[in-house]
């Protein structure tokens, strides 16, 4: 896609008006482009804010008191979920080994689910939106991974990260790709995934700050390895 077309896609995206038929392709193109284009990330953030402000142009309406009462009644019995962006704050540094294992299993389950539902553009779209908005957020950095086929970008900021790639080669059957964060050569597993259709959008609930390298190895599925068993197929330097 040309730059102008990508900007048009950003405007359509902000309004929720991207066509369903090429939605996957359009979002993929947007993701790839935003990872490397600061001015489009800014446009993306601005236009999303503009779209939200459009709500104000509708005539405000008095909401029936009964609605408020029902709502306040409903929340009296439920606690909010403890789901601060803090769950993203630092799974790796804050929690023990057990929690890390649970997080990795969770990520794995999620990614398998994602692969199965990749044709379901709408549900996949939510993950893409998250990835896109991370890229558009303040303080996000990107690192391009060198290595095998296709393009892979690791976008990160304090508390969260996402791995985005396309045209990737799928690992052999029974094998998975495993993502590692390294500090002075010491690896910490972040999770495993398989590209779907050559595409990966892999949200990482871990804090990449304090690490100096991100690497991907091919490991035995479905859980991956405790430590890398082979040389990375992709890697990049990151800065805290």
């Amino acid at each position, binding site marked *: 896609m040309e730059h*102008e*077309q990508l*900007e*048009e*896609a*950003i*405007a*359509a995206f*902000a*309004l*929720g*008006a*991207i*066509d*369903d*038929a090429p939605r996957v392709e359009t979002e993929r193109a947007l993701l790839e482009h935003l990872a490397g284009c600061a001015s489009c990330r800014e446009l993306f*953030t*601005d*236009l*999303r*804010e*503009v*779209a*939200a*402000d*459009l*709500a*104000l*142009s*509708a*005539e*405000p*309406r*008095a*909401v*029936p008191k009964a*609605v*408020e009462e*029902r*709502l*306040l009644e*409903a*929340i*009296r019995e*439920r*606690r*909010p*979920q*403890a*789901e*601060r*962006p*803090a*769950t993203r704050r630092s799974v790796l540094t804050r929690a023990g080994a057990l929690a890390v294992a649970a997080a990795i299993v969770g990520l794995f389950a999620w990614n398998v689910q994602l692969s199965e539902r990749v044709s379901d553009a709408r549900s996949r779209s939510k993950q893409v939106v998250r990835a896109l*908005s991370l890229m*558009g*957020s*303040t*303080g996000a950095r990107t690192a391009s991974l060198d290595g095998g086929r296709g393009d892979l970008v690791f976008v990160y*900021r304090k508390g969260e990260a996402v791995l985005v790639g396309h045209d990737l080669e799928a690992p052999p059957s029974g094998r998975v790709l495993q993502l590692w964060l390294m500090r002075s050569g010491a690896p910490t597993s972040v999770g495993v995934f398989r590209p779907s259709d050559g595409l990966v959008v892999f949200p990482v609930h871990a804090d990449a700050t304090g690490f100096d390298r991100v690497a991907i190895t091919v490991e035995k599925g479905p859980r991956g390895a405790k430590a890398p068993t082979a040389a990375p197929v992709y890697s990049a330097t990151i800065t805290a």
Partner: protein
Amino acid sequence: MRAADLQDRKDRDLLERVTAGDHAAFAEIYRRYAPTAFGLAVRMLGERAMAEEVLQEVFLSIWRRAGAFDPARGSVRSWLFAQIHHRSVDVVRREEAERRRSQVSVTPAADDGSVDEVIEESWLKARRSHVRNALGSLSAEQRQMIELAYFQGMTQSQVARATGVPLGTVKSRTLAAMRRLRDALAGTMMEDGWSTSS
């Protein structure tokens, strides 16, 4: 520009308290934004009953998932309104699909157009008038793109079909409209944030 948005700082504090289970903070956010949120849903859905459902669903999810709000990605109100919009678009498109399946042509019940007496904080009124002025600064063709895509929940192909305007033109016109809105609104943010908040 968001940095100067004092109101949003207040909203964030409230949301922080909501995360801790503070009912009063939730009620305050509700009272501040429900009329706008409801107004948007009514305008998109053309009727009140469904709009009430969308409103309840979204505010309930805000109570449960206040912690998922991420200030680095925008203001509290844009987060809230975006959820109302997404949910309403879902409803519009689902209804549309059902209509197509049943081959029945139904015109959505028109919004009765009546104007409610709504008490709003002054900064919100000011912001509303800025947004309306910004929309007013668009050409009629540009405004139509925004109207159909945002308020009627149409995809760009549907906009092209509905208007007879070529898809390529729909896309470029929409981008031009959004840029113009951004530029028109950019100069007003600080003013709304600092001088007129209650």
